[in-house]
């Protein structure tokens, strides 16, 4: 059940920072949100056909396949996500089909101010019972103060690391950043030439029961794009809740050769202090994915991940080796299948096999 919960809370909405390899270093090329993910702007929809998808017909990339026209200052998008997973450990064998997401999101822009709202359903496990409840994963106001500076406030995800949608990865899973961990924030982003800077003040969940996040704090990220298609960056995060305070910091990058071969890596160090026990734990987590696009929209990959969030305890040590295939057949559709071999060091150590298949559809 814990395993299912991880998936329920860990897959985020579409965002593909690896598109830097086509000369798109910033999320705002495709998304309404400065930190990416979710609602696509018109340019993002064009790219979904021209750059991401194997096939695509004229006009297919637009909202509702172009059957519904929206004014230029309005963006709409619907999301449906289905997950089939299978996991085997020495003591557990589990297979599940999960409806992950069914949401609608929209934005309205007036002059330099944009309002964004999202509404959908959330499946939660409460005392062993599946509970379905309404959720708004995002709602915020955004002000494009200048060409370079954007300020926004409201509920949205904290900008952290590469900010990929692959939140089953160790980096996001182990550090507590994933879907449905959105918080109320105030954020400023500054974009100049090849540099982008994000600072987010995390106000907390404001008693929003749909969020799994618990912390308040700050996060700052600086990224630098070079040679028109490569990107490096670093993130610092400071968080605090009733039980602990922690600092997380580390570098990340996306490097590619000739667009098709690309490596995405993140490495973070965490320094955590438990306020109750006054025990301090230090450790690391890393996620690495090597991809090769064999044909437009068809991307096999290899993954290597490792974490040990307490140097003094082998029980916190984990490693994972995996392979998979990501396929974007047409605009609106992403298919992803992965196999992972996870090695745990707790309880004298054991291996787990994890297979999952995901269908991601947006309107």
């Amino acid at each position: 059940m814990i395993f299912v919960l991880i998936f329920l809370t860990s897959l985020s909405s579409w965002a593909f920072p690896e598109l830097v390899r086509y000369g798109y270093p910033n999320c705002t090329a495709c998304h309404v949100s400065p930190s990416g993910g979710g609602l696509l702007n018109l340019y993002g929809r064009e790219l979904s056909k021209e750059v991401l998808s194997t096939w695509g017909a004229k006009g297919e990339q637009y909202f509702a396949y172009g059957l519904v026209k929206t004014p230029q200052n309005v963006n709409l998008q619907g999301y449906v996500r289905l997950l089939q997973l299978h996991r085997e450990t020495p003591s557990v064998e589990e297979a599940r089909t999960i409806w992950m997401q069914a949401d609608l999101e929209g934005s309205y822009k007036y002059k330099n101010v944009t309002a964004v709202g999202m509404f959908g359903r959330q499946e939660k496990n409460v005392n062993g019972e599946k509970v379905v409840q309404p959720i708004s994963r995002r709602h915020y106001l955004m002000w494009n103060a200048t060409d370079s500076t954007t300020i926004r406030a409201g509920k949205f995800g904290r900008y952290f690391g590469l900010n990929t949608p692959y939140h089953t990865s160790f980096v996001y899973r182990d550090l507590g950043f994933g879907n449905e961990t959105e918080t109320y924030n105030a954020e400023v982003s500054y974009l100049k030439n090849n540099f982008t800077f994000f600072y987010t003040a995390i106000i907390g969940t404001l008693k929003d029961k749909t969020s799994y996040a618990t912390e308040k704090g700050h996060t700052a990220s600086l990224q630098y794009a070079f040679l028109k298609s490569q990107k490096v960056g670093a993130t610092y995060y400071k968080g605090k809740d009733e039980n602990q305070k922690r600092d997380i910091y580390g570098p990340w990058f996306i490097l590619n050769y000739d667009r098709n071969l690309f490596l995405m890596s993140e490495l973070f160090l965490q320094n955590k202090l438990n306020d109750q026990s006054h025990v301090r734990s230090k450790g690391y987590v890393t996620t690495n994915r090597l991809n090769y696009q064999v044909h437009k929209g068809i991307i096999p990959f290899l993954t290597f991940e490792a974490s040990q969030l307490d140097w003094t305890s082998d029980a916190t040590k984990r490693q994972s080796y995996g392979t998979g295939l990501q396929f974007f057949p047409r605009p609106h559709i992403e298919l992803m299948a992965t196999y992972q071999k996870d090695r745990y060091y707790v309880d004298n150590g054991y291996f787990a096999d994890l297979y999952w298949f995901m269908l991601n559809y947006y309107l």
Partner: protein
Amino acid sequence: MALLNFILFVTFSSTLYAQKLDLSTGAKVEFDAVGKPAMINIKGTGSKATGILDFKDQNATGEFIVNLKDFSTDMDMRDEHMKEKYLEVQKPGFDKAILKISHKMESLLPQNGLWSPQNLKGTLTLHGVTKEIPLNPKLNIKDGTAKGAVNFKIKLKEFNIEIPEFAGITVADEVTANVLIDTKVQP
């Protein structure tokens, strides 16, 4: 005797100081533009420059033609807008850019080494407007082959080209063009 000397001088100088870069089979032409506010890099490829650059009597002369219809930026809709709405290639004469060079040179191409004169200028005809622009060549000459690029900046407004906007992205006024050269230096 003076007449003989003169004939020898003319013959000698015209053979010794005449060189040319023949791009009649075409040199690749690319352009780089920046789209704001997301600072995206837009690269145009697929077109060629054809022509011959003559070096004679310390003058560099040549005329190069670039077919604008051949450019692609890897996005069909953007290409359509670029060509039809902004470059207006459907209008007579607007489908080509013509770069003319007629310039007094301080030095000709070296036998071997870098050729990168600071003051080379050309006359660019684009979108119905003709304007002098500075050129920045960097050619490595080795074993009779010239390899490198000539780049130059184009300010769109100076050529009466409306600043392109596409799907919320506005292109910066200055675009960099690169002519990629890899050809034999001919006598």
